[in-house]
């Protein structure tokens, strides 16, 4: 089942590295962005709740743990593609 994961841009580099280490899955270069431009979002069928809880152990990420959100049920609203679309 696809799980949607959102995280703040302020921990993006750290989050990407930790995510790859825990899940073996790289986060794509162009995730969706929140309309306020402060967060990213991707969907994943590989990332488990266990992965996510392990992710939040990292010190820098832990400080923002409450801002890392997941949604298994629905595609969250308010996310946009930053790549030019015509």
């Amino acid at each position, binding site marked *: 089942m696809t799980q949607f994961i959102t995280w703040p841009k302020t921990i993006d580099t750290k989050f990407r590295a930790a995510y790859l280490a825990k899940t073996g899955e790289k986060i*794509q270069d162009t*995730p*969706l962005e929140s309309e306020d431009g402060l967060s990213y979002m991707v969907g994943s*069928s590989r990332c488990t709740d266990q992965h996510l809880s392990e992710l939040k152990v990292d010190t820098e990420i832990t400080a923002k743990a409450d801002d890392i959100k997941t949604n298994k049920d629905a*595609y969250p609203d308010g996310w946009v593609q930053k*790549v*030019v*679309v015509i």
Partner: protein
Amino acid sequence: MSFSIHAHRTPSFKIGPRNTNPLGDIVASCIFDLDATLSDSFDSGVDAQKWKNVETTPADSEAQTAYDFDLGADSGASTDDPTHVGTIGAADAYFEHDGGDFFDLNGALTTALKTLHKSSSNQAFTLGIAFRAPATLATAHFFGTADGATNDPGLIFVLQPDGDIWFRTSDGSTRTGMIFMKNDGTFPLQPSTNYLMFMGADTANIGSSTVIAINSSTGAAWDNTDTIPTGSTDADACVLGANSAFGAPLPNQWRTYGFYLFNEVLNDTKLGLLKDRLTLRHQRNYNA
């Protein structure tokens, strides 16, 4: 007094035995045949990161593997990989997209894909796609040898939220080199519905040779056509499920059953053969 009741049933569409042969054995112009329901095309036990072409002798004389695609932007596991759902090789298997997933050509761009958009190349083609539309349609570039920028050389097929589809080409020089061919609401796509769609054009004779067939073996011309630019710049990438810069990917809950490419504008006879074969392959009724 006795009486009998005769049950009246709605006539059902009977589908024959499954046929998993490559499409090239019935339509020789097949270049690639990528199908989520064929184990020769996708088998996570063999290669979980590649969607393989099952057409052994592509009509453009390229190698079979020249049309293999990576799941996502590269051969590594990534959040941009579509998720294969169902049993490997099963008729009802599919790739599910989450709003950020696509397939990127694994190897170097072939001559056909570089020149698909050019009138000077005399490159006729038909693109086929079997899919289930999601509950909510959104703007999506479902095939791209160009990126989302107006002047990037190549072509893009686009799905609109209202269900319309169109494609545009660009020669890489000016915005006026961009054309639109639009299926103006004559058969807008409906949410949560299965489709088998073929769209083609002869870029050297764009005014007289186009085809669009949606769940039908009878092709129609596109509504609007314009002059294809003659620019000489090649395209530089080919992506299924997004444009060549991975922008505007297919929406969440989109299901891809297969992508197919031919180097001619298919006539009704060939559209009929393909519709019948894919009905058997997928064991699914693609009638409107």
